[in-house]
């Protein structure tokens, strides 16, 4: 069978960085082809090359028989491209976004509606809502509709499910399989092992080169050190009686919408507490209240011994926080970021300097001391952000989806840092969409529609619900959600 995408000896470099070097592979018509590799391997560059947004320095790429350099105009009508970050206009409504993308390609929503019908039906109730107000999972579905509306032959999906909860991810992949039956070829990048397994064939890319092409089973076995590292084993530290977080009937309303609905729980000192929930279940809102970034509508709570209603600034002295969106200064160097935040927390100069060296050594970033943070790969940035959040030795560290979008090996390294911090007696409060990470936590709570639906150790939860892993428990509970995407 003639391949529909043909990549032959492609090389691309940005200034001095060789992003891709001699990359070749073929994609057969009608298959779901995975482009898998660690962060910074060159996957996004490859996607941009295939999408005719970049020109290769050497080699050539043909898609559907058209060359990406010579025939780019004709090719663009045959391609659907969904970049890693949301490509929607947040100020346009759902239907306006779809109509806009259709018009861009000279198509109408009506003529290709059958292609997106299944997906769009779920979005229909929200069609007059602005895209910026949709939940992560819904945004991805809309973005997929927009990439499909001109009926492309090949769909390029660059990490479409990063930051999306497991239930929405599963739905998203069901849609991909349906599209496959329609005969659409898909090239997709993903950091999730279950999604890697769902591809027909995949290429493993590392350091700008293709290291292997084959079925996901073969590849996962061959590159298991990066794609499925061994699990982390840890003796659960003896739970201490002292509670560092205590929350009673906490409520947060935005207008008529109740984001967090009477939640109560407590976290012991030194515990690793997993705070799970689907996109829009209210995790981030709850966490922001605990950190003193947002004022509760009602309810009481104490964090590190201070009241969350009145003593926000006191709380801030005793906690560290790492937000979902990477939020160190890209235009400052590694050591400068550390120094800035250490200074803000009031550490004296003679403590900052030696501790900085110590942290850089532990992170293995000593050589990157003078690198601008913006130039670091995502996985390194995340580990740096964690170290900055714990640099002042806080009582509690809050992590909001700290490992979004990185490969399993990098995530494992991140969890080693979490364990080190916990061993030093720092309480860890973490949200995540990775169910394997949920297994690493001491106790786990699962939020559904603003309420805490279950709270126990991972073992306890699995027993209660009779599921074999956390993924099963999560799906079971998250399916109960009626709120549907906010």
């Amino acid at each position, binding site marked *: 069978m003639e391949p529909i995408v043909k990549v032959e000896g492609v090389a691309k470099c940005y200034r001095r960085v060789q992003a891709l070097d001699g990359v070749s592979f073929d994609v057969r018509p009608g298959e779901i082809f995975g482009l898998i590799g660690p962060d910074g391997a060159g996957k996004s560059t490859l996607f941009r090359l295939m999408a005719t947004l970049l020109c290769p320095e050497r080699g050539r790429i043909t898609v559907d028989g058209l060359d990406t350099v010579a025939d780019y105009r004709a090719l663009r009508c045959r391609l659907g491209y969904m970049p890693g970050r949301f490509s929607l206009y947040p100020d346009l409504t759902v239907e306006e976004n779809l109509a806009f993308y259709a018009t861009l390609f000279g198509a109408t929503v009506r003529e290709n509606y059958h292609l997106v019908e299944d997906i769009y039906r779920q979005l229909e109730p929200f069609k007059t809502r602005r895209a910026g107000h949709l939940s992560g999972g819904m945004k991805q579905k809309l973005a997929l509709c927009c990439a499909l509306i001109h009926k492309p032959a090949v769909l390029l999906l660059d990490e479409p499910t990063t930051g999306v909860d497991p239930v929405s991810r599963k739905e998203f992949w069901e849609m991909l399989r349906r599209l496959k039956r329609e005969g659409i070829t898909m090239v997709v990048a993903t950091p999730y092992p279950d999604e890697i397994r769902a591809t027909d064939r995949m290429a493993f890319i590392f350091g700008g080169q293709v290291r292997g092409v084959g079925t996901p089973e073969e590849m996962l076995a061959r590159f298991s050190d990066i794609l499925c590292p061994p699990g982390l084993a840890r003796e659960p530290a003896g739970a201490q009686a002292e509670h560092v977080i205590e929350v009673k009937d906490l409520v947060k309303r935005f207008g008529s919408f109740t984001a967090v609905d009477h939640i109560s729980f407590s976290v012991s000192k030194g515990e690793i507490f997993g705070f799970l929930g689907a996109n829009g279940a209210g995790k981030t809102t709850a966490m922001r209240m605990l950190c003193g*970034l947002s*004022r509760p509508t009602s309810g009481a709570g104490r964090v590190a011994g201070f009241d969350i209603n009145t003593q926000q600034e006191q709380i801030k002295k005793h906690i560290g926080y790492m*937000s979902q*969106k990477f939020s160190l200064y890209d235009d*400052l160097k590694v050591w400068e970021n550390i120094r*800035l935040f250490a200074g*803000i927390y009031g550490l004296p100069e003679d403590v900052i300097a030696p501790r900085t060296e110590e942290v850089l050594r532990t992170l293995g970033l000593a050589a990157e001391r003078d690198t601008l943070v913006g130039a670091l790969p995502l996985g390194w940035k995340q580990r740096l952000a964690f170290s900055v959040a714990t640099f002042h030795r806080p009582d509690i560290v809050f992590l909001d989806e700290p490992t979004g979008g990185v490969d399993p090996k990098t995530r494992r390294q991140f969890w080693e840092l979490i364990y080190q911090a916990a061993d030093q007696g720092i309480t860890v409060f973490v949200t995540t969409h990775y169910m394997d990470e949920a297994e690493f936590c001491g106790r786990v709570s699962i939020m559904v529609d603003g309420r805490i639906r279950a709270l126990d150790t991972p073992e306890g939860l699995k027993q209660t619900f009779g599921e074999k892993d956390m993924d099963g428990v999560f799906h079971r509970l998250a399916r109960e959600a009626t709120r549907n995407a906010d």
Partner: protein
Amino acid sequence: MVLKFLIEKEFKQMRRNPVIPRLIVLFPCMMMILMPWAANLEIKYNNLAVVDADHSATSRRLVEKVASTDYFNLVANAPDYGRSLECVERGEADIILEIPDHFEKGLATGQPVEVQISANAVNGTKGGLGSSYLTTVVNDFVAQETGAPDAARLSVLNLYNPHQDYKLFMVPALLVVLLTLVSGFLPALNIVGEKETGTIEQINVTPLGKSAFILGKLIPYWVVGLVVLTIAMALAALLYGIVPVGSVGLIYFFSGVFILTISGFGLLISNYSGTMQQAMFVMFFFLIVFILMSGLFTPVRSMPQWAQWMAAFNPLTYFIQVMRMLFLKGCGLSDLWPQLGKLLSFMSVFAVAAVWSYRKTNG
């Protein structure tokens, strides 16, 4: 103590910005090298059409006298007023001088003579100044001819700017515009920029005090403003020989107060904006109003009452007064107390509002 880290950070970020360091040098150069020539209110080379109905030696001498000045360019000699008006309509002439029949005879016999001047006032300043120059020239001529030069001689003495040099008048005003733009826009875009990149979140979750945060933003822009002022004043001295008559120390002192005022205002806007675009537009709106209502180009006294009230609530009004008084009149601090008081009030109001409106914990 914390301030040191914050200021260090702002300067590092500023230095690594691809645009701002260049802007800090280029902007004052541009303002001082080009603008004094462009912002010139002197009207030269008005195109003049003459309708000479008298055809006498005296009327020809008047026309020669007018045409020999720098202010007028004789472009047409029309046979009647209608034709000369056509010249104006075609855009060839700006002003018409109509000399009546019996002009010479009238001057000789002392009969009243009516010379008519018609100016195109589409550009009000140009029309107004052109007709007043022309009136002066004609009156001079008549006085000479009738031999009664001393009947009522007017003597005009331009105080503090004896040669009515427009550069001398405009340079202090341009300094004000320069400081307003640089130290207004940069802070306005700063906090909202941190909101857009998400770094503000990391700051908000630290125990950093609000005043320290705002001061950490104000001080770097204060320094930038003073650097810009220094470059601009050096250029004014080098290029035009314009040095302040009053104390340079006082100029720096007042500029320092003014920069804090306008930067505080910028930070205030930044706190309330959600995106850079919003902050840019809102700031632009206010700065245009501030600049136009400040007496920079048109005297405040000649504005309608409501506009004068608005000007009274405009920090630029006072700073422009101060700069002109210091540059041209050489006033001392004792003459400037009222302005100082007002500027200091504006400064405190804006700085306090900037701190107050910055929210570390949202509702």
